[in-house]
């Protein structure tokens, strides 16, 4: 059965996350163990991550909570911030690359619409959307 997240448990998690500043990085499993939450299924993991994200949005001190290879950290040194931002940036770059690849494929192999008016309509709506 999945965990019943009550106020008490959420505050317990918030405390563990705030303590990351002192204790250093911790993996999801360690965090789960500390607050006494089982981490058996993917759903358990997702639920814990969701709560962490929610708390990070609510608490100013946790705004930059992020994941590094060493676990979740609340950065305080500049290099720690970069450690969190770097994978995010590469993920963004990857997405742009993939979008370019799709565009490239479309221009080479994308079929032409039989009815020209529809094609024209789609171009116009795209232009309008980009203008907005």
């Amino acid at each position, binding site marked *: 059965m999945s965990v019943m*997240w*009550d*106020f*008490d448990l*959420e*505050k*317990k998690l*918030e*405390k563990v996350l705030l303590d990351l500043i002192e204790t250093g990085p911790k993996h999801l499993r360690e965090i789960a163990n500390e607050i006494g939450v089982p981490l058996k299924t993917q759903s358990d993991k997702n639920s814990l991550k969701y709560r962490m994200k929610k708390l990070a949005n*609510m*608490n100013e001190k946790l705004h930059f909570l992020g994941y590094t290879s060493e676990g979740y950290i609340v950065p305080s040194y500049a290099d720690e911030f970069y450690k969190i931002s770097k994978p995010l940036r590469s993920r963004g770059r990857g997405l742009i690359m993939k979008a370019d690849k799709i565009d490239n494929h479309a221009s080479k192999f994308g079929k032409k619409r039989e009815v020209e008016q529809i094609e024209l309509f789609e171009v116009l709506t795209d232009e309008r959307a980009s203008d907005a």
Partner: protein
Amino acid sequence: MKVLEIALDLIEEDTNQPRYNFDEESLSELANSIKEIGLLNPIKVRVINNGRYKIVFGNRRYRAFKLLGLKTIPAIISEDQSEVEIYLEQLAENIQRESFSPIEEAEAFYKLINDQRFRISKKLLASRLGKSERYISQKLDLLNFGKKVQQMIKSGSEIVQNRLTEEQVLPLKNVAVEYRDALAEKVAKEQVPAKDVKRISELFLAEDISPQTKEFLVTKPVSQLLNDWHEYQRSKSESTKKVKLEVVDLSNNEMSDQNYKSDSSDYYNIPIVKKLYDLFNSIPSQHIISDNVKDSIREIKIENRKEFINTIDALIDCLIGHVHQWESIKELTNTNRFTLIKRESRK
């Protein structure tokens, strides 16, 4: 009632009186006003031993006279000798004044109720001062706070940094002692309105929040505590959603899904019912074959006998098929189609 001019040397201050905070600045203001327009109200004294007097009320006026270097002061001599009466008179005189702090008032009430010399009931005190018992209880509650917080409590309702009004501090009176003063200091520092203090106190009075969480909460700034209060209210309303078990007739649900009306006239339009009636109408009712008809078997020639038997077999197979089919439909209809479902409902 006689007003006499009494020498200042013969008058002693009452150290036991309810008021003990004397602001030097306001004292010099009072002295200046006495110098300008004279004394408007005489002080009240009572006779003690050796022809000396003790002040009942008018301590500030007495000090102002001393400050001005005057020799005598107009005074009314009180005929009341009872300690309680004098103390109550002093209290009644000061209670209306703005500069009389709520803590001084609370301490005076406490003294009157608990001191061996007075020992009067809350009810009597309330009636003598023309206040409600609730008013007295509220003041006494202020004494639950630590000395540091007590010093911060001021009269009036204006919220000032590092000071506390009664309205701000009273919602915290029932909070556990380990958090009470820390919260009150936080409230004073962050100038929290009384409404928000009530919310914060709700968090610390909640029984379903563990002491560990409360210890963590007490370290947080007020703005976050208010966020937490909203969060707590939300989680509480979610937890009060009760799951109710309900028996539901599945067949009804299915019927409603398929837009079947519950009207009994539509019963004959249900496909399976239609099928049943079609079959039932096409099969003649069973009756015993008469001996004459049975004897006609003999008329069947030997070459047709096999075909006759085959046809009977086909008829029996067909009838058995129908029997099996309708028996299974009967069984299905008889099966209990009720189920338990969880339905959420608010308290």
